């Protein structure tokens, strides 16, 4: 009896080998490598921030890694409202607002069109819809440079060349392949019976889109929004080609500030201007990293 009791007590509790501790050699190597990689990527940002907070005399000392002795926000103010680009000396602020005016409608229009495209391609398959989709996807692989000049001609013919609306059209068109792919894959992954049920309930093309599909598409909308906001905000090429100096987006102005040949190079102002230009995409990444990764995965898994 007593023997049996000892036996059972020995059998209670976890069995087998203990899981490895936190500081096994393997983990040290993994975390070490991760730390090195993280350090490597964070370093430039650190240098930029530190430099932007220094005055020019301190920068001339040449120690780019040292923190500022005397913190000054003068370069930030100058970058925003005083730095000169060509004829204007009102800093990045003009470019910032131009970019906002370009980005907001471009993002909204391209997502609106692409979501309807994706919905139609996944649920209302028409004769030749696969061919249509294939052509659209091939469009994503043609280098932009090839399409630049034809696009200029098209916009000129439409009377939109050099205007903000022209640039919005360009961004909408070039965002179409990847966004349509994104939405099509998302809507295809939704249960087909949902669509059938809505049809039996009597909803039509737009009824199903607005009442059923759109409310379910919020996650992919967020993903598309992130892709488009960062993409259009960072655009340089289209901004230069399809607008005139009055409408130059922030990226183009940044280039003009940093690359202006006259006078002394104001590294602190340049750094502040660069951070200001990258602030919006950076904020978007930080605030929505989870959705961003999910979006990349959603777009990549099925073709």
């Amino acid at each position, binding site marked *: 009896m007593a023997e049996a009791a000892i036996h059972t007590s020995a059998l209670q509790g976890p069995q087998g080998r203990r899981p490895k501790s936190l500081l096994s050699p393997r983990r040290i190597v993994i975390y070490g490598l991760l730390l090195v990689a993280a350090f490597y990527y964070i370093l430039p940002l650190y240098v930029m921030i530190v430099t932007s907070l220094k005055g020019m005399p301190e920068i001339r000392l040449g120690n780019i890694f040292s923190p500022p002795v005397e913190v000054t926000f003068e370069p930030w103010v100058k970058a925003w409202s005083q730095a000169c680009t060509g004829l204007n000396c009102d800093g990045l602020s003009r470019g910032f607002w131009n970019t906002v005016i370009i980005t907001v409608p471009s993002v909204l229009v391209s997502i609106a069109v692409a979501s309807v495209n994706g919905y139609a391609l996944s649920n209302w398959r028409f004769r030749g819809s696969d061919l249509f989709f294939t052509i659209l996807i091939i469009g994503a692989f043609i280098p932009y440079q090839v399409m630049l000049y034809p696009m200029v001609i098209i916009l000129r013919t439409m009377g939109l060349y050099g205007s903000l609306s022209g640039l919005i059209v360009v961004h909408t068109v070039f965002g179409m392949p990847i966004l349509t792919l994104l939405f099509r894959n998302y809507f295809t992954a939704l*249960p087909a*019976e*949902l669509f*059938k*049920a*809505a*049809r*039996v*309930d*009597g*909803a039509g093309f737009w*009824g199903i889109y607005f*009442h*059923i599909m759109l*409310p*379910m598409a919020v996650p992919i909308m967020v993903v598309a929004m992130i892709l488009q906001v960062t993409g259009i905000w960072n655009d340089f090429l289209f901004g230069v080609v399809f607008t005139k100096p009055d409408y130059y987006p922030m990226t183009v102005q940044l280039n003009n500030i940093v690359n202006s040949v006259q006078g002394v190079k104001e590294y602190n102002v340049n750094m502040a201007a660069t951070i200001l230009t990258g602030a919006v995409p950076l904020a978007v990444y930080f605030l929505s990293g989870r959705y961003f990764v999910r979006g990349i995965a959603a777009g990549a898994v099925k073709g």
Partner: protein
Amino acid sequence: MNTSVSIKNLSLDFGAVSVLKALDLDIADGEFLVLLGSSGCGKSTLLNCIAGLLEPTGGQIFIKGRNVTWLEPKDRGIGMVFQSYALYPQMTVEKNLSFGLRIAGMPKPEIEKRVARAAEILQIGPLLKRKPAELSGGQRQRVAIGRALVRDVDVFLFDEPLSNLDAKLRAELRVELKRLHQSLKNTMIYVTHDQIEALTLADRIAIMKNGVIQQLDTPDVIYHAPKNLFVAGFIGSPSMNFLKGEIIVEEGRPFFQTGGARLPLDGYRASETLASGRAVVLGVRPEHIRVNEERDGDPVREAVVDIEEPMGADNLLWLKLDGHVISVRVNGARRFAAGTPVRLSFDMSMASLFDAATELRI
């Protein structure tokens, strides 16, 4: 017969693959018809054609005498319940139920009346304010049925509605569905691959294979007098036992000859005269074989118990007979150890005889 749904010469091809082949089907008003078959037989395709979710390649569909072949689903007077429930996830149960009515622009008081009635019939009143994600599988399926109910339709279409539920819930909802049909008396067309659902629910069963209806009849006839070998083997669990042999007629008495044994076919009601020498297949259901309980004059076969599967009420025996494995269902109280020799006698009045070449019932 007052027809509710009538399908004439319906065919559907996906490219080179023909899914439905010149199919004819008449369903009576208030009938519960089950389309039964294994996956890929075309039963769901047929249902989707009736619903208007798939366009047939040829043929016509009539509902209540109206040719609806090219009508939109909403204009056909049908309601549909899906396997995955297909509830709109962002809407409450109430909104789910009323969606179709709101789309149709029905006045609010009428919508509320209909939702309340459906909720009462299906006992989902307390769930009306919840979202589908907050419901159990059984509750979801009830809401899905309610969505068809509020539309006040002539014909209910069910596409494997119970397949996503666990066994216990499936049995409960099966009974509820039957009760619902008894009280509503609507025409119901029900697709399933589960023969228990088919046998218990159906007024008539249509067994399909390769886009063709193999047999359309009451569950009783389908079970006891299957029209061909496919139907015989498909219905019943475990399957009907098949023995190959030939007909011998001796002094005017027909016998079924297999191996060295000879079974008299006196009790069998054949639809044609049995000629000597005809190659046939004898089908006997597991419950129509007696073990050690032969009556006087019954020819007896010797077999050995291979495996027994006690199932509570029943005991299923797998026996070795002339190198074949056959299954026999006996009372659960009767237990047999593996290796036990037993004597078998067949209830020939309940057996089925098929022509070996055409596979059709004789």
